[in-house]
């Protein structure tokens, strides 16, 4: 574990060294992401200008929810997005070769080697927005509840990463350069809204099959104290099932890897 942390320390150092060379990209990214975050909050503000209740949630709760989404998105964009983006290209071009000969997990390397240092400032904004939403939330909660909630959001980030990877892994079989990522982008916006606005069929679909609801909706429901035992058990067990399924597919994919001619 310590060795992997040390390796990640190198990844961070390398990523920042690289990012600082490209100043324009660094500043442009800040404005682009900030506009995206604000537009997400704005949509909820518009909705709540017409109603005081959205599927049982107050405006305060909805703002905590969307701030959690922004935090989740910021974490994903900083830690995983670049790596996931390049993943199918790596497989298609046979760039996995060297990773498979090293005595470290190739999955660790491929998933985390590049930290998006140019979106780091935006991660700080996301943390700021989340802090603002939490401090404006008037219902009482303890520090341990808040820490548990942050942990569940991080768990959501991991689920989001696995979902992306599952849409990319078919590349090992199809050799297509981008996998099925287009499909995921279409579904991406589902997680931006509370699961309670979905009908029952879609709620099951997006909880158990394509678990977008586990990313933010479930942690938020737990934080707001809704059916804590039922939602908690479902979230924990489904995270384990999902992880195991992903690792199983990953091992199958590595067997399938055919590299590319030299």
């Amino acid at each position, binding site marked *: 574990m310590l*060795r992997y942390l040390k390796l990640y320390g190198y990844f961070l*150092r390398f990523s920042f060294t690289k990012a600082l060379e490209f100043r324009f990209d660094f500043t442009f990214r800040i404005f682009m992401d900030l506009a995206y975050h604000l537009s997400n909050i704005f949509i909820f503000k518009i909705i709540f200008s017409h109603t005081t209740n959205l599927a049982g949630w107050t405006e305060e709760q909805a703002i905590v929810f969307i701030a959690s989404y922004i935090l989740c998105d910021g974490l994903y964009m900083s830690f995983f997005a670049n790596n996931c983006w390049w993943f199918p290209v790596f497989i298609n071009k046979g*760039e996995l070769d060297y990773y*498979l*000969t090293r*005595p470290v997990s190739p999955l660790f390397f491929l998933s985390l080697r590049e930290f998006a240092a140019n979106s780091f400032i935006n991660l700080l904004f996301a943390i700021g927005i989340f802090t603002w939403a939490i401090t404006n939330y008037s219902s009482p909660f303890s520090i341990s509840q808040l820490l548990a909630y942050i942990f569940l959001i991080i768990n959501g980030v991991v689920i989001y990463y696995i979902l992306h990877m599952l849409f990319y892994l078919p590349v090992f079989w199809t050799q297509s350069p981008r996998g099925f990522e287009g499909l995921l982008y279409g579904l991406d916006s589902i997680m931006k809204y509370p699961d309670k606005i979905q009908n029952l069929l879609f709620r099951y679909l997006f909880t158990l099959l394509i678990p977008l609801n586990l990313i933010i909706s479930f942690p938020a429901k737990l934080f707001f104290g809704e059916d804590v035992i039922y939602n908690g058990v479902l979230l924990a067990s489904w995270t384990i099932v999902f992880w195991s399924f992903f690792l199983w597919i990953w091992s199958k994919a590595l067997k399938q*890897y055919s590299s590319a001619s*030299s």
Partner: protein
Amino acid sequence: MIKVENLCKSFKIYQKPPGLKGSLKALFKRDYFYKNALDNVSLQVEPGEILGLVGANGAGKTTLVKILSGIIYPTSGEVSVLGYNPWKRDNRYRKQLSLIMGQKAQLWWDLPAFDSFLLLKEIYQISDKNFYKNIDYLSNSLNISHQMKTPVRKLSLGERMKVELMATLLHDPKVIFLDEPTIGLDLMSQRAVRSFLAQYRKEKNPIIILTSHYMQDIEELCRRIALIKNGSIIYDGPIDKIHKDYSQFQSINFEVLDSDIGRIQNFLIQKFPENEKEFIDNKIKLRLKKELVGEATKELLEHFSIDNLSINQIDISKVIENYLQHDQT
């Protein structure tokens, strides 16, 4: 030790007719076929030995190297490298293994090579003492110590290959796969890499498998070669033997007047129909058995005005080319 027995690898490939029409057709129906990249390959390599793998593009050399280094799975057959099955990807094996592919970079492009070396130090858990000792040894041997702090993208191709070699050898691997390590390098860099590898083998005694299209690499570094053709090994033995078997041949090289080019082509085709001939403008090369060379030279001098005449031994690259073309066993 490397031990390979009856190794086979086939790839499923589809063929598509050209053009948009072909692409549309392939969307619904694809013609798949299996290509045997390796067909019943067996061989053994001992520590301290450099085996040269030689063959045309697509013959199966890189596929064999990729199976031995655990990158891809074989279709069938047995492989043991240092007692490990490579595609089980045991970390104890991967710590002793090294691979360099001349056409693929492993170092971080935008960073100085030394930064990547630090990362490799963590990956292979190299002690501080060994790390700095190896950095000194490798950078001095390869004469590249002045470029440790330059971003890799700013290095010349030759320098880049040298730092790639350093990265490959930092952890004192016991088995090294070198897949075209001198590809694209100028003559001086090629020589530097070759002499370094020869010295490294002498001092560290690893198992090395080398593939290269440059016959000089093979000739200078390998006592033993394996010739691969269409996925099968058609010769596995000392490089000297294959050369000696062909030394019964010599080539007559000469020049004729421009006005004689057509006439001499007809003459040689009629007189020596079975023998290999090469015509480049007025420069001509004719390959013959040693005992026929004297008579043939006499006849040429009688019928044509000959200039710059010389009689040479066939060089090893030509020998191997012929062997691969005619599949003589």
